[in-house]
């Protein structure tokens, strides 16, 4: 039986493992954290229709029966032996893999790097992930009862050369609009402001979500990036931006500011990729695929495959499609089908 190592137990890793297992391979799934699901496990609901993340994850996990997976496991070393890869995990397990699939996903941009937004300094500044966690658990001292005004800053750590990420993280606009609506559901009287540069509502149903945020929830969209955040004596946040549509500086006092942290390539995954010399051929930090259109699942090395956000920001359905595509590509590779 052929061995396939899948690195990363997020949605792409789970889906690819399930598919490969069904194709008859011996799949070894390596996950660094104590639970499966990656970022999905920390999310509450999913855009555009608000499906609970839990339902999606449960469905995925239920599909991987028979897959060997190791939690809290890291790839300690990986190197080529003849035509297969010798993968040594930190828990002492060694696998001779016929193919390796990177589904290492993404790290959220560390919002404290945008110092001017004061994440970690001002009490009422949180990130999209923090807000999701609050939606899930309703536990976060920073989210207080009856807020008057709440702001969302799009593109935090995206489209920002100074932050090191010039690219668009793709999902934050839709996430911001989703969260803006959800926060209105929680606090109907709150005034919600979204500070955006462009609204990238590219997917099916996203534009409707945007319209609904305006029409049904009265969310105010301000075209302009927040330039700085300060705290006043009442611990409220004073946010400055330009309303670029009127060409005027704008100021608003908020009770909560949510930073839409973007995606950057997973640092753990990058370390492993370094050993293979396939990390970061592109200047955006994401793994370089064999080509940009036709061979999205192939790395530049034989037998190493990619799926999901490790090759650039992706939505959940994108990642799942890639996972399925990767499973087929690996199958073809192992069977010698060209």
């Amino acid at each position, binding site marked *: 039986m052929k061995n396939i190592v899948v690195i990363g137990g997020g949605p792409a890793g789970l889906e690819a493992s399930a598919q490969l297992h069904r194709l008859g391979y011996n799949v070894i799934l390596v996950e660094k954290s104590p639970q499966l699901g990656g970022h999905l496990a920390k999310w509450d609901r999913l855009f555009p229709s608000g499906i609970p993340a839990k339902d999606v994850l449960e469905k995925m996990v239920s599909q991987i029966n028979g897959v060997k997976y190791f939690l809290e496991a890291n790839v300690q070393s990986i190197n080529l032996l003849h035509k297969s890869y010798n993968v040594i995990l930190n828990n002492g397990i060694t696998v001779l893999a016929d193919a390796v699939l990177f589904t290492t996903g993404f790290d959220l941009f560390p919002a404290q790097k945008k110092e001017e937004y004061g994440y970690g300094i001002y009490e009422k500044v949180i990130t999209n992930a923090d807000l999701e966690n609050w939606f899930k658990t309703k536990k976060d001292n920073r989210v207080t009862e009856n807020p008057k005004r709440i702001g969302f800053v799009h593109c935090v750590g995206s489209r920002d050369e100074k932050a090191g990420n010039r690219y668009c993280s793709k999902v934050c606009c839709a996430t911001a609009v989703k969260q803006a609506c959800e926060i209105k559901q929680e606090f109907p009287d709150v005034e919600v402001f979204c500070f955006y540069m462009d609204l990238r509502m590219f997917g099916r149903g996203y534009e409707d979500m945007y319209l609904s945020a305006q029409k049904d929830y009265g969310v105010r969209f301000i075209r302009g990036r927040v330039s700085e955040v*300060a705290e006043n*004596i009442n611990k409220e946040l004073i946010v400055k931006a330009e309303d670029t549509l009127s060409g005027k500086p704008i100021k608003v006092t908020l009770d909560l500011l949510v930073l839409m942290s973007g995606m950057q390539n997973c640092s753990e995954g990058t370390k492993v990729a370094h050993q293979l010399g396939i990390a970061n051929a592109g200047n955006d930090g994401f793994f370089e695929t064999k080509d940009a259109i036709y061979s999205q699942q192939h790395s530049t090395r034989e037998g190493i495959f990619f799926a999901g956000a490790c090759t650039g920001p992706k939505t959940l359905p994108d990642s799942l499609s890639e996972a399925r595509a990767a499973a087929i590509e690996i199958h073809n590779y192992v069977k010698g089908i060209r």
Partner: protein
Amino acid sequence: MIYQGKQKIWSDYQKEIPDDHYFYVRSCIRQNLFPASEKTFLDITRNKLGKDFFETEHHTTCGGIAYHCDTIPQETSMTIIARQFALMQKYGYENYVCSCITSFGLYTETLETWREFPELEARIKENLWKTCKLEFAKPKYLAHASDIIYKYRNLIAAQAKYKLINRHTGKPLRVVEHIGCHYGKMFPSKSVGGAEYPYVLAGMIEAWGGEVIDYPERRHCCGYGFRQYHIRSNRGYSLANTYKKFESMEPYKPDMIITNCPGCPYFLDRWQYVISEMEGKTYGENGHGIPVFTYEEVAGLVMGYNPWDLGLQMHQIGPEPVLDKIGIPYDPQAKYLL
């Protein structure tokens, strides 16, 4: 405000400051506006702390004001600067320290520009040779005088006679720190603590017993802005900026303001008078303004210098309330006796 968050950022922006042997250059305008500050700096560093700070009467302006007023081109100011560096080299120094923030900004800008465009540096070399028959070497280390006082803050605290503590209440004085724009905003990595939450003055205040106030418009310019002030018809704009800062700090009821720039203490001090004339509004106690100091003046005060020797009688806003709070004795009769 989460103090640990700021500490994290401060730890990211620590610059190495050599301990001794500096070539010191003065500011053009400080000698008129706050004449004892530079004298105090040299007295503290040389005589109280026993350090080597050399200065020569042959140094000139850096050309910063003219450069920022668009009256001389960049090459001219760079050539002036090259001459200063030549003087430093001539007297056998490698560490360069300037009293002025505009100079510090311009020196940094020049060195960074030369690093990016070596051909420009070569041309300046040529210019300097043609004009002055001088050759220069770039300083090994560039500091602002406030970096030096920051470096020695604990040495000063060890010799201090007074603390920034209100002796009537026993509580720390509430101190607003104002950093000159050109200190860290252009090149955050060249500053102590970065551009967003600079630590250079905050460190002094903490070391000397005061409490730093972080108010919403802390980052804002003092209002000088070179041509905004120099042209009378623009002065309303200069004033409006200062006004905005005071409106923002008002609720915090600060006891004093410390600055590290030639222009800032002047404008924060004198514009308070103008605002009180125009708007009938004052921001200090009992209808007075908030006293404004340079960091050298404050260092001198805590070390027990006679306030009038520090030139505090030159301030528009009388320093007496602060002296009373700290408990520094002074002879009111001697204030204007030189």
